């Protein structure tokens, strides 16, 4: 192993965390230079699940790339579906019927809840608590049941289409979703009593892993990480897309900058998601779910297009370059956790190893999305 470049008078050693480690949520590897229990230098090593999405984007037709978007961030697959269909619709000039947009919002928000619930369970598991995971997965299964009844899949949804959605939602889905909203509202206080107010949790998260707003800006961090640093930035509000402007919801912001703030942002977001879904169900208009004029074969005009959506972990940006043929010329996927993780090296400097894992958990990493 290479000699770490740090003070030669200090006795440091190198620890290899990952790529197979339960706390890295997948196959992330971090090379840690340690001074005792303290981190001198942390260097994430990526690429252990690089799946060539961008290369595949150049090899497949516009429609054939759709299933790939579900496999980037598999916890919030529908947001990625949404980002991709949205930028292609922008490029090809396809109008989406209103009902389809409402269905998109409902399903995306349900997916966001599922994602946050899983994160909640896994995060507490990282910190040593096993029980909350079981509660979170119990609720998550209900979301997945609902989503499966419309999309046919549990995880890697491929539901949106250019110009609408694949299937209309039905009455059982609507009543089921309403029942779920009621159920989760009654369960959320339990979540808070079990974890948020727990003394061990507070001790491990309060004032741990501070990330300033300025650091977020330098690294391009978005999502709950940025909102936990006191910056009210959410693509759904700042760059309104779909039917979000017609819905009334708040963006939870905490300015403590610590892991607890990021935890609270996500927990409050679950609440806001429920609000969004409730309103969207109330306002759901009748009509078609697929644009009538949507062309069968997509050939966007020459040029490059950018689109961004708020995924569960931050801004998912996608840049497509079209050369006028039925395959993209270039497809750049800007994943939120790639930028969020890039600040880990700086943020974890001088931290205790155990605290750094709490920080890493609070970044909510999904590795295949970082490596793409």
């Amino acid at each position: 192993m290479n000699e770490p470049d740090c003070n030669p008078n200090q006795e440091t050693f190198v620890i290899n965390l990952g790529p197979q480690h339960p706390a890295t949520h997948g196959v992330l590897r971090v090379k840690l230079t340690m001074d005792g229990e303290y981190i001198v230098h942390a260097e994430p090593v990526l690429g252990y699940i690089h799946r060539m999405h961008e290369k595949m984007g150049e090899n497949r037709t516009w429609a054939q790339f759709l299933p790939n978007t579900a496999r980037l961030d598999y916890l919030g697959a529908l947001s990625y579906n949404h980002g991709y269909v949205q930028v292609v619709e922008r490029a090809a000039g396809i109008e989406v019927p209103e009902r389809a947009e409402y269905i998109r919002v409902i399903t995306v928000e349900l997916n966001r809840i599922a994602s946050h619930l899983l994160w909640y369970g896994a995060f507490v598991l990282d910190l040593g608590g096993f029980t909350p995971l079981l509660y979170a997965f119990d609720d998550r299964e209900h979301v997945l049941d609902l989503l499966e009844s419309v999309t046919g899949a549990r995880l890697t949804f491929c539901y949106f289409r250019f110009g609408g959605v694949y299937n209309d939602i039905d009455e059982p889905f609507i009543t089921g979703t309403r029942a779920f909203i009621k159920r989760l509202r009654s369960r959320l206080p339990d979540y808070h009593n079990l974890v948020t107010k727990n003394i061990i949790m507070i001790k491990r998260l309060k004032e741990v892993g501070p990330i300033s707003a300025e650091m977020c800006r330098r690294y391009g961090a978005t999502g709950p990480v940025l909102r936990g640093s006191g910056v009210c930035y959410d693509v759904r509000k700042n760059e309104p897309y779909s039917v979000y402007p017609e819905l009334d919801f708040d963006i939870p912001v905490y300015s403590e900058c610590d892991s607890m703030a990021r935890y609270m942002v996500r927990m409050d977001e679950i609440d806001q998601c429920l609000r969004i879904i409730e309103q969207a169900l109330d306002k759901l208009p009748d009509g078609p779910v697929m644009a009538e004029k949507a062309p069968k074969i997509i050939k966007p005009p020459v040029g490059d297009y950018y689109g961004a959506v708020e995924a569960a972990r931050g801004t998912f940006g996608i840049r497509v370059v079209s050369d006028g043929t039925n395959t993209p010329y270039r497809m750049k996927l800007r994943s939120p956790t790639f930028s969020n993780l890039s600040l880990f090296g700086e943020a974890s400097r001088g931290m205790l190893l155990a605290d750094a894992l709490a920080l890493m958990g609070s970044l909510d990493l999904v590795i295949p999305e970082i490596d793409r």
Partner: protein
Amino acid sequence: MSMLCETLKEDFLALAPLALVDTDYKAKGYQLDITVAPAQVVEAATIMNRRGYTLEAVTGVDWLASAGPKPAKKAAPAEGEEEPVEAPGAPVAEQMEVVYDYTNTGQELCRVVVRCRIPRANPELPTVSGVFSGANWHERETHDFFGIRFLGHPDLSPLLLPEDADFHPLLKDFRV
């Protein structure tokens, strides 16, 4: 066009970029499209940093002369041109393009694209990782995929590809 974009435009006109185009946000997804020379990349980033923007992504596009789109007309430099121009500075010879996506996390929306063309045979340009720390990984990734060398970058070893990778898979003429 928001106030924020207007002030930014003034800043950039002082820099004298190769092209500066107001784009239709609805059609393209961004408001300003700026093409700069390789030597101006760092200065562009400094302006963005001063104005409180954040760097969303850095990426490359490989423009093989044969595979690229039909050359659009050469964008006229500066002077607030209004009509949207397709693919500004479209390829003439084999080129690489480096694209920087900037955005503002404040209340006003302004997405800016800064591009820079470099010859494909010798793809080199200065790094902006000194200005935006987040550019470090993005540039490493771009080097992985396209072999573009960012001069002054602290560490250009492969990020996503295996440590000993010596190929650049997103080049259009890449074959296994």
